[in-house]
Every structure is written in C-alpha cells, then in structure tokens.
C-alpha cells in the first residue's frame, strides 16, 4: 500500500470518529477535514512525511472530545435528541429504568391526588358534583408531579426546590380562597389561566433552575410542542380504549360508564401528562421528526385559509360579526399561528439561509395579523358600547399580548429575509417573550376575581 493510500485511510478513520459525535454535523466535519488537510499539506511542504504530518496535524487540532464539547455548547439543540434517549454507544444508561419507574410512580401519584378530595366529600360525579372545585384545581392535581419529575431528573438543588414550590403554593391558595359567586365567569377564567401559569412554572424545573438561559427556554418550547403531540396520541388511544370498554361491558349487561367517567378517564388523563413528558424525554428522536412535518403541513393550509378569508371579506364587504365568542375564536387563531411559528422556529436550523418556507411563514403571520386587527376593530366598537366584562377583558388582553408578539415576529422575520438580522434574533425574541405570557396568566388568576367582584 502506498503512503498516500494509508493517509487517505487514516483521514477516513478520523472522519468516522468525528462523525459519531452528535454535536458535530457533517458540514462541520467537512470543514474540520479541510483544516486537517491544509495542515498536513503545509507540514509535508516543511519536510515531514505523511505519517508524521498526519499525527502532528491531528494533535494540533486538539483533543476531539473537548472540541466536540465546545461544539455541543454552541449547538445545544443538536444534542437535544441525545440528552436522554438511547446513546449511540457505551454511555452509562443506568438512569433509564429508574426514570421510567419515577414517571410511572408520579403518574400514579397524580391519579391518587385527584381522588383525595373525594375523601373530604368533594364529589366528582353527579349528583351533587363539585365540578367547580375540580375545574379550578385541575392543574394542581398533576403539574406539581410533572415539576417533581423534572426536578428529580435534572437534580435540582435544594434552594431550587423551594423556589419551585412557591408558584404551586400560590396557585393552591389562589384557586381556593376566592368566594366565587355561582356561575362565575372569573372562576372559569381562573380555571383556564391557572394551568397555563403553572405550565410555565414547570419550565423552572425543566431547566434545572437555569430558566433564564435562552437555550433552556427554547428547549422547553420544543418540549411543550412535542409533549402536545404525544399527549394527543395518548388521548386518541385512550378514547379508543374507553369506547371499546363501554361497548364490551354493555354486551354482558354491565354499565361501565360510572367507573370510566369517575376513575379511568380523569386518572388516565392526569397520569398521561407525566407519562407523555417522560416519553418526550425518552423517545425524543421519534417525535422530533414529526413536529417539523406537522408544521410544514399546516403552515400552508392555515396561510391559505387566512388569505381566502381576507379575500372573502373584501369581496363580500361583510364585516366581522361581533358576538360573545368572536374574540375568543380569534385568540385561538393567533394561538395556533403562534404555535406553528414556535414549532417552525424551534425545529429550524438557525444557521440555514432564508428559504421559501420562511417567506410562507411570514405570509402566515402577516395574514393572521391583518385578520386579527379587523377583529379587534370590531371588538373595540362593542366594548365601547357595552363595557368590560371579565371574559371580554381576558380575551382582549390575550389578544393584545399575542398581537404584540406576532407583530414583532413579523418584523424580525422580514428583516431576516432581507438578510439584515440573523435568525437567532427571532428565537431570542420568542424565548424572551415567555415571561410575558406567564405574567398575564398569573395576573388573570390573581386579580381578575377581585377586580370583577367574583362574578
């Protein structure tokens, strides 16, 4: 074998070795290889033979483990799927069975927590159901356990546990001290906003206490999206299971409905929250490929829907009819658009140049903004006529919050497409905005009942 062939073989091995690092992508390997070859050529020119030149060049490039670690620091999102999934080779995997046991244990604990109030006479089932109690406390039955799951998994320090406990204690207090009137709107608002507020509090545990870091927050956004997909899948399976259970027990003349609605459905739904989180952590790479696909599928569809809607409004000259649900409907629309945007942002390689999909994304956001401004206009008229109700105020507040986020996102997107700012700015804007959502959710929970006199 000639020396040249040996050298090529060695570079090939070196490349293979580097490729196994998850944090180093093939383009980076190519770049490093170009460096290695340039170095070898220079050393050869200085009189070293191939062997020596290769060895010196590799040595100068540095310890590959530290280089890979440095890459990993720079590209935490590349390691995202390897954080907890199956390592490619040989890394210790003792934590995995334990994780599973912890997740199942916490899921059962959530189910048990849901049943404890029954002991104190708070019935979940009719007749004489305390539905409001269960609605207000829904998040508290399960999200503390989710937080504990992550706190254990990330090895949260003691001060972190205390800090983590604060929002949950506050939530338990807020959910239960207010003397709500019957059929209270603010009570429903608390029931809706409390889980959201707590979900954002879980971010603290998820980030292992380092929730201020942009990367950690971005990972939490990714996690939330993938958790949602997993949960939906589990819910579909659960639906099929309950349907079949009812059917076969009916066949032998037993009514399984009470057991289903009283026990299996709520306990399963709550336990599945923890299980889905564990699955996201554990089986990262399975879903990771799904989130971008869903985004690519639905972004064009929603864009088309919005554009057709605007066209239809212009064509017919019909204004948006304002009744109770209108603003909530448009809130949901903006939430979906923001969700698609977040999915797209979190799944995107922030280094990639602007592409066609980015143009589409901008179109989606802009058209959603146009539609929303029209809806807001109609709403403003109504509010000036009929005044503020709790529901209308909450919907309006959320709408403005989303509007601000999406407007600036659109501006950043446009500037990114024009090549003026890097994509990372858009990512940072989204993660920097998360506390605003948390603040709003807590504000509604804590102050709306008082402001609107528990109506």
């Amino acid at each position, binding site marked *: 074998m000639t020396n040249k062939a040996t050298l090529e073989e060695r570079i090939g091995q070196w490349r293979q070795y580097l490729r196994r690092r998850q944090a180093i992508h093939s383009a980076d390997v190519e770049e490093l290889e*170009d*460096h290695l070859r340039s170095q070898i050529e220079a050393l050869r020119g200085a009189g070293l033979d191939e062997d020596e030149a290769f060895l010196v060049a590799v040595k*100068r490039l540095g*310890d590959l483990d530290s280089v890979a670690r440095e890459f990993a620091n720079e590209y935490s999102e590349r390691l995202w799927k390897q954080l907890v999934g199956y390592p490619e080779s040989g890394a210790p995997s003792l934590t995995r069975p334990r994780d599973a046991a912890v997740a199942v244990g916490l899921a059962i604990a959530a189910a048990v927590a849901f049943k404890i109030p029954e002991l104190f006479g708070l019935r979940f089932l009719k007749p004489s159901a305390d539905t409001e109690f269960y609605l207000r406390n829904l998040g508290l039955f399960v999200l503390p356990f989710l937080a504990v799951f992550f706190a254990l998994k990330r090895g949260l320090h003691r001060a972190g546990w205390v800090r983590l406990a604060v929002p949950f204690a506050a939530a338990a207090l807020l959910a239960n001290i207010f003397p709500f009137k019957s059929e209270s709107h603010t009570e429903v608002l608390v029931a809706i906003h409390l889980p959201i507020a707590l979900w954002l509090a879980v971010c603290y545990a998820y980030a292992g206490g380092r929730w201020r870091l942009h990367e950690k927050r971005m990972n939490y956004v990714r996690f939330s999206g993938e958790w949602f997909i997993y949960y939906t899948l589990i819910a579909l399976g659960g639906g099929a299971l309950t349907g079949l259970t009812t059917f076969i027990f009916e066949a032998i003349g037993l009514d399984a409905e009470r057991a289903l609605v009283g026990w299996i459905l709520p306990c399963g739904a709550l336990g599945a929250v923890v299980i889905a989180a564990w699955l996201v952590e554990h089986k990262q790479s399975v879903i990771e490929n799904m989130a971008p696909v869903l985004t690519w599928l639905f972004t064009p569809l929603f864009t088309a829907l919005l554009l057709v809607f605007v066209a239809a409004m212009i064509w017919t000259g019909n204004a948006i009819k304002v009744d109770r649900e209108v603003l909530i409907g448009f809130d949901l629309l903006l939430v979906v658009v923001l969700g698609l945007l977040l999915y797209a942002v979190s799944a995107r390689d*922030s280094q990639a140049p602007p592409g066609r999909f980015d143009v589409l994304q901008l179109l989606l956001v802009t058209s959603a903004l146009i539609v929303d401004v029209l809806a807001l206009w109609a709403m403003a008229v109504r509010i000036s006529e009929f005044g503020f109700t709790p529901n209308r105020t909450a919907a309006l507040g959320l709408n403005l919050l989303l509007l601000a986020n999406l407007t600036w996102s659109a501006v950043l997107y446009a500037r990114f497409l024009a090549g003026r700012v890097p994509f990372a700015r858009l990512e940072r804007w989204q993660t920097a905005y998360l506390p605003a959502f948390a603040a709003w959710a807590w504000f509604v929970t804590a102050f709306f009942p008082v402001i609107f006199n528990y109506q």
Partner: protein
Amino acid sequence: MNIDKDLVAASATPLVLAILSEGESYGYAIIKRVADLSGGELQWTDGMLYPLLHRLERNGLVEAFWSRSESGRDRKYYRLTRSGAKHLDRHRRQWQVVDRAMRGIWRMAIDPAARLIWPTLTWRGAIP
C-alpha cells in the same frame, strides 16, 4: 511562553474579527495569521476556532459561504458583516483602554525612573 487560557479566550473574538476585517478567510488561514501576528507565541488549539467561528456566525457578526478552494476542495469561508465591523470597533476601543492602562503601569512598575518621566511624557503627548 505559555499564555494564560483566560487571556487567550478573551482575545480570541477580537482577533478573529480583526483578521476577517482584512478580507474574507477560512479557518486554517486564520490560525496561521494568528501565529504570524504573535510571532508564534499565541497558540490556539486549532479545533477550538471552529465553534467560535460558528458562534460569531450565529450572532450575525460574520457570514459564511462555501466555495471551491485553489486546492480543489470545498472550503467554508467567512467574512465580516456590518454588525461584525461595529462589534470589532467596540472591541478595539475597549482593548485600547486596557492596553493604555497596562502600558502605563508596566513602565511604573518596571522602571522606577519612569515614575518621574511618565507624567511629563504623557503631558507632552509623547505617549498616547
């Protein structure tokens, strides 16, 4: 001479930006330029340059493009962006301050005679 790790790390970004301000370049050439500029005293672990370059790219201070090199291989080149140039300017001013302060104290510390001359010299504008 072994230069302290923190010092190497602190000077890496301005050095790379300054080298790129001379014109577009690629990893290996940047390393060589650093070695030339420091007379071989400033030794980087070559591999560590790349994560740094990628970080600068992500933050929009430099932009990268692939092009065919004279050796026939595909090569990733980097060039300074406008925001990178601004950043470099800020770095330069900061380093000048540090440099001036250091030079002042070195003279005092090393040469007691300079304690007397130094104020006169600066006052006359002989030393910037």
